[in-house]
C-alpha cells in the first residue's frame, strides 16, 4: 500500500510511519497544508491519513481539492473529537472513515486496510493468509477450502489480526475494537481471552496452524511462526 500521512504532530507522525512501514507498505508524510496539496497533486495514494487541524489551512479543503481534481484516493480522517463531530459531514465530502484521537495504531491499521480493500477490489475480495481465506463480502472463512463457522466477534477478531499480522496488539486495543464504547463497562480482559481462545481453537481444529501467540501477557500477535 502507498500511504500519505498528513499530520502536524511530529511524534505521532513518526509512530504511524514506524508502524506502517514494512509489509510492502510505502509511507510518505507531510506536516502542513501546502505540502499536502502538492503531494496529492503529484501522486496517487491508496490511502491518505488526514488530520483536520493543520497549520496553514483546514484539512477539509484537502478533501475538496481531492474531489476537484478527481482523485480516488481513500481518505481516513484522524482528528480530535471536538473538531470531528462538526465535520462528520466530512464523510459526505469524500472521506471513507474517521478515527478519533487518541487511537491504537492497530486500529488505524485495520481501518486503513479495510479502506484500501474496498477501494481496490470494489468490495469484492478475499483476504488470504497462508491457508486462511476470508471472503469479506459473504464473511465466509475457509481453511484449506474447509468452511469455518465463526461468531461475529470471532470474525471481527480474525480480520483485525489479519490486518495487523506480525504486530503485537495490546489487549486494550482489541477490547476497544470489539466493544467500542461499551468498554467503559468491562475493564476486565477475560472477555477477550474467551474470544481469542475460541478463535484459536476453531482455527486449529479446522487445520490451520497456531498463528495466535500471547505476548508477555500484555497482548497478542498473529503471524507466521
Amino acid at each position: 500500500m502507498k500511504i500519505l500521512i498528513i499530520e502536524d504532530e511530529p511524534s505521532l507522525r513518526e509512530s504511524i510511519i514506524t508502524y506502517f512501514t514494512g509489509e510492502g507498505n510505502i509511507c510518505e508524510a507531510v506536516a502542513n497544508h501546502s505540502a499536502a496539496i502538492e503531494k496529492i497533486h503529484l501522486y496517487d495514494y491508496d490511502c491518505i491519513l488526514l488530520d483536520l487541524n493543520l497549520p496553514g489551512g483546514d484539512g477539509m479543503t484537502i478533501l475538496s481539492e481531492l474531489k476537484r481534481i478527481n482523485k480516488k484516493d481513500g481518505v481516513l480522517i484522524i482528528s480530535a473529537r471536538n473538531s470531528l463531530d462538526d465535520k462528520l459531514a466530512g464523510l459526505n465530502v469524500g472521506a471513507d472513515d474517521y478515527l478519533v484521537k487518541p487511537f491504537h495504531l492497530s486500529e488505524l491499521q485495520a481501518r486503513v486496510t479495510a479502506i484500501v480493500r474496498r477501494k481496490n477490489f470494489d468490495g469484492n475480495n478475499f483476504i488470504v493468509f497462508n491457508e486462511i481465506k476470508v471472503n469479506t463480502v459473504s464473511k465466509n472463512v475457509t481453511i484449506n477450502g474447509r468452511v469455518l463457522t465463526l461468531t461475529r466477534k470471532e470474525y471481527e477478531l480474525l480480520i483485525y489480526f489479519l490486518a495487523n499480522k506480525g504486530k503485537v496488539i495490546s489487549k486494550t486495543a482489541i477490547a476497544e475494537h470489539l466493544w467500542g464504547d461499551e468498554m467503559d463497562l468491562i475493564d476486565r480482559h477475560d472477555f477477550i481471552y474467551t474470544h481469542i481462545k475460541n478463535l484459536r481453537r476453531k482455527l486449529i481444529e479446522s487445520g490451520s496452524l497456531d498463528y495466535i501467540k500471547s505476548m508477555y501477557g500484555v497482548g497478542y500477535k498473529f503471524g507466521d511462526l
Partner: protein
Amino acid sequence: MKLSRRYSRVNFITSLIILLITGIAYYLLIHFILTEQLDRDLAIEEEEIRAYTKQYKSLPAEANFKDQIVRYHFEPLAFTRMFSDTVYNNLKGHGEEPGRRLITSVVLSGKLVRVEIIKSKVESEDLVRIIFYITLGIIILLLSSLTLINRFILNRLWKPFHVILSQLRVFNISDGREIYQEDTRIDEFVELNTAVTALTRRIRKDYVDLKSFMDTASHEMMTPLAVIHSKLDILLQTGTFTQNQGELLEDIFNGMSRLSRLNQSLLLLAKIENNLIQDKHAISLKKLVMQKSRQFQEILEAEEISVTLNLDEKEVFMSKYLADILLNNLFSNAIRHNIKKGVVIIDLNSQFLSISNTGRTEPLNEDKIFHRFNKDNSSEGMGLGLAISKEICHYYAYRLTYQYQSGQHRFNVFF
C-alpha cells in the same frame, strides 16, 4: 412578613397610640379650659349679686333664663362655697341639661342667704364633641391614607426591587441574557441594580473562563495522549519483554485507556454544555433499546443478568450520537451496579423510559449521583456516566430521575 406590611403595621400602631393619647389630652385640656371659663362666668355673676345686694339691700330677682339660673335659699345651715357639675331642668323644654353650679352666699341684713347659680354646659359640651369628632376624623383620615400609601406608593416604590428579584430568580449562568434594569431614581435601588449587574457579569465571566479552560485543557491533552498512545503501540513491537515488564505495560495501557475515555467524556460534556451538538434525527427508541440489549448481551450473559423489555413505540428527536451515549450509560450503569443473577427491567412508553436494576439493597444518594466524579468505591467507572446522561436529558428538556423502590434502582427519563 413583607417589609411594607411590617413597616405599615408599626406605623399604624404608633400613629394610633399617639393620636389616641393626643386626642385624650386634647379633650381633657379643652374640657378643663371651658370649665374654667364657666367658673369665671359664675364668679362674675356672684360678684354682681353681691354688689347688687350691697347697694340695694335686697336680692336681685331669681332668674331663670335659657342658660342661667339663679336661686336663693334661706337656710341657716353652714356650707362652703363650691363649684360643681350638675344636671338641671331647662325651662325651655329641652328637659334635663348638664350645667355648672356655683353655690355661694351673700349676707342680707345680717342673715346668710345661700345663692345657687347654674350655667348651662350644653354649648361647651357641644364644642368638646365637635373637637372630638374632628380629632376622630383626622385619625381615620391619617390612618387610611397611611394604608393607601403603603399599598400603592410603596408597591410602586418597590417595583425595581421586585423586577430585579424576579430576574435573579430565573438567572441562568449559561444563557447570555443581561439583567434588565427597571429605571429608578431611588439611590438604594440604583445601587442594587449596579451591584447585581456587576455581580452577574463577573459570575458569567468566571464561568466562561472556567469553561473555556476546561475545553482547552481537555483539547490540549488530546495530542500528547495520542502521542503516548502511539508510542506505546510502537514500544510493544520493539522486542521481547519479560512477563514482569508485560504486566507493567498492561497497566500502562489500561491507564491510558481510562485517561482517553475520561478526556472524551469531558470533551463531550463541554460540547453539550456549549450547545455544539445540533444534528437532530427522528430516532425510534424502541429499536435503539433493542439494539443496545443485543450489544450488551454478552456481558449480561456473563453476569447471568436477565433482561425484561416492555417497549412501546416511541420516537424522539435527538442526535444519534447522544441517544447512543445516553442508552449506553444507562445500560452500563444497570449492569455495572447489578448483582450476579440480577435483573434489569426496561419500560418504554410515550411518557418515559425507565431502566430498573437490582443491586445494593439501599437507595443511592439522589443528590449526589448525578454529580461529576461522584462514584462509590466499588465502581470501576469514572463517575461521569450519570452526569453526562443528566446533561444530555437536560439538553433535550427531558427529566432524568432516580428512585429506589422494592429493592430496585430505577432511572427514569421523562420526555
